[in-house]
């Protein structure tokens, strides 16, 4: 995966959020978390994180999959795994 800036990462994450959580039409930014999205339960979170893995060609640990607090933290982890 080539270097990606934060806005590019957020754009990809936004696409995944819109695909998976089709009832959510609010903003997707660094502060977004599962509590704000009705469809984002623990199983949907796994589906979301694996779609993110596939999109960025990265692999998360189980604790990263279950423990990340919001999209901002996720972006930081993605950037770190991409070598930024």
């Amino acid at each position: 995966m080539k270097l990606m800036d934060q806005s590019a990462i957020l754009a990809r994450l936004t696409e995944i959020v819109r695909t998976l959580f089709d009832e959510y039409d609010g903003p997707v930014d660094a502060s977004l978390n599962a509590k704000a999205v009705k469809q984002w339960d623990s199983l949907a979170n796994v589906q979301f994180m694996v779609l993110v893995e596939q999109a960025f060609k990265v692999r998360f640990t189980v604790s990263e999959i279950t423990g990340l607090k919001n999209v901002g933290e996720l972006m930081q982890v993605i950037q770190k795994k991409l070598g930024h």
Partner: protein
Amino acid sequence: MIPAAYPDLASLVQAQLAIFPEHESYLSTRFRNAAPRDLAFANELAAMIKTIAGQHLSHFCADYRWLAEVIIEEEIFFRREGRYRLSTFAEADAQVYSNEPYMRRYVNGILLSQLWWANHTSVMQYFRDTYLPGLPAGARHLEIGPGHGLYLYMAAREPRLASVAGWDVSPASIAVTTATFKALGYPGRIDLALVNLFDAPGGQFDSITLSEVLEHVEEPDQALRAIARLLAPGGRAFINVPVNSPAPDHIILFRTPEAVFDTIREAGFDIEATHLAPISGATLERARKLALTISATAIARKR
């Protein structure tokens, strides 16, 4: 979260959240838009689960929490690899069925999932409200793999049935079903036995329940043919299979409800009715689009 008119459901939700507070958002969504009829059924189910668990309710709730965490691990594997982790009965037997402490927690967790997972509750409600009333008076009923025993208990309470039996190949599973009937105070006689369906004489039943069994066996088509053989001419089967549903002992992956129904037809059944119940919080359309769990149920008649 739960209206006061459903006290058993409300108290069971509270007991679960005391053990698993992170589940509040999920359970809130699970019951948010439930119709009064569905809440009434859930309340009835909650009362039975509380009675079965008795003074060990907090342990059952802890076992459900453990199960939910196990399912997350299986879901991660499934989403990454596109298949279930195990593929043979021997693997499932070694990791789950022969592991007594693991199995006990698993069965307790599955009992609570009958209420907390919308697809499980929906299928059970369909069984009680649609399948059982459609059986002819005097029908001889069998359940293969009755497990927690709630389906068999509902059949046993149906006065028009002539007899009710439950078969399993696991003594531990038979013990669980026996304990359910004892806890619920069932006064009648239930024929619970260690029987392999492939070895039993044919034509002895008018109705057979096969709920969440086919995904556990290596040759589901052969199991279905055995079910057809056990049925008398014109006999009916209630067959429930979850698709895209990773679990520690699921070895056969059905990817669509249609794959389930085709397998049933090919084994010698005509399908009279179907019921599709998507995972909590998902519409059927969304569940199909994203390959989420759907409980695919057929009422099938022996051809």
